[in-house]
């Protein structure tokens, strides 16, 4: 295991850096109007939590004890899984909605073509 300056593992630094990068991207997306305020808040909270847990792994242990999960790492995995499931579900719903919009477009085109044929 590589410890940097004897107090942090390399993985902790990498995780924290990745979360910082993700925070930056989130901010950019918000500035461009790609995500709304609610999404911004959720993502900022998530990435800040990742940074906190990466730098001070014991903080997760405190929450783990509070929730009765036991180990801090387990809590992180459970939360990550729940989040992934939720995001997957949301994505599926969005794709489904987009498919319906494509259908509406397809129908409009078909009926317009028919209309111009008969004129």
């Amino acid at each position, binding site marked *: 295991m590589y410890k940097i300056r004897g107090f942090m593992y390399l993985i902790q630094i990498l995780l924290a850096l990745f979360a910082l990068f993700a925070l930056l991207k989130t901010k950019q997306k918000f500035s461009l109007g790609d995500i709304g305020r609610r999404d911004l808040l959720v993502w900022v909270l998530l990435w800040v939590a990742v940074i906190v847990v990466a730098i001070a792994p014991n903080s997760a242990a405190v929450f783990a004890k509070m929730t009765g999960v036991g180990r801090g790492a387990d809590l992180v995995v459970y939360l990550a899984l729940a989040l992934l499931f939720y995001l997957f579900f949301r994505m599926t719903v969005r794709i489904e909605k987009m498919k319906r919009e494509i*259908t509406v477009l397809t129908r409009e085109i078909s009926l317009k073509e*028919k209309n111009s044929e008969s004129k």
Partner: protein
Amino acid sequence: MVEIKYMTIWIVIPAYNEEKQIGRVIAGLFEHGWHNVVVVDDNSSDNTIVVARKSGALVVHHVLNRGQGAALRTGDELALAMGADVIVHFDGDEQFDPGDVKGAVDYLQEKGLGAVLGSKMLDNRSQIPWLKKLLIIPISRVINLMLTAAWLSDAHNGFRVLTRATAEKIIITQDGMAHNSEIIGKIKKNGIKFAEFPVKVVYNEYGQGVGGGVKILRDWILSVFIR
């Protein structure tokens, strides 16, 4: 004096790769006196569109394949634009008998209904594969009851007769095969008077298998979350 109102009846056929059957289906309908036929070609890769046009139907073409439910709605909209008083949903694969259309339309008018739903279970003209008859159809009926609150003798039948008012109210949003339950659900929800009517079904292909049923359920569940 008795007022006789002549109804404009349009037959809507969703078609996807039906070049072998669609010509005979349209000819059969014409022979029975149904000349207002809309065929919605759901972007077939074969010659469905050419055959349907040659056979004398009004053909509308989807530039992308969107599924049977989507094609039906396109057909409904075109039929409504053409001034249809009554719309008949009919399949393009020769599974229905054009001879059943008149009876179903008459039944709709006589009983003052908003919709007539075809059923292959009300008489014994249909040769239903035994597995379908004894297992798949009974299960589908229960699922259909749960989804739509309607207890029908035949849960999945593409033969329907709708009045103009019904077709205007029931906007199909289910692109795939879940449109059948969607239509029945919306008929119930809107308080539209409906009844089943015996139709003959010829099985050229097996139709919906278990996998198809699972997909219908999935589409239905997802639709709950789409606003």
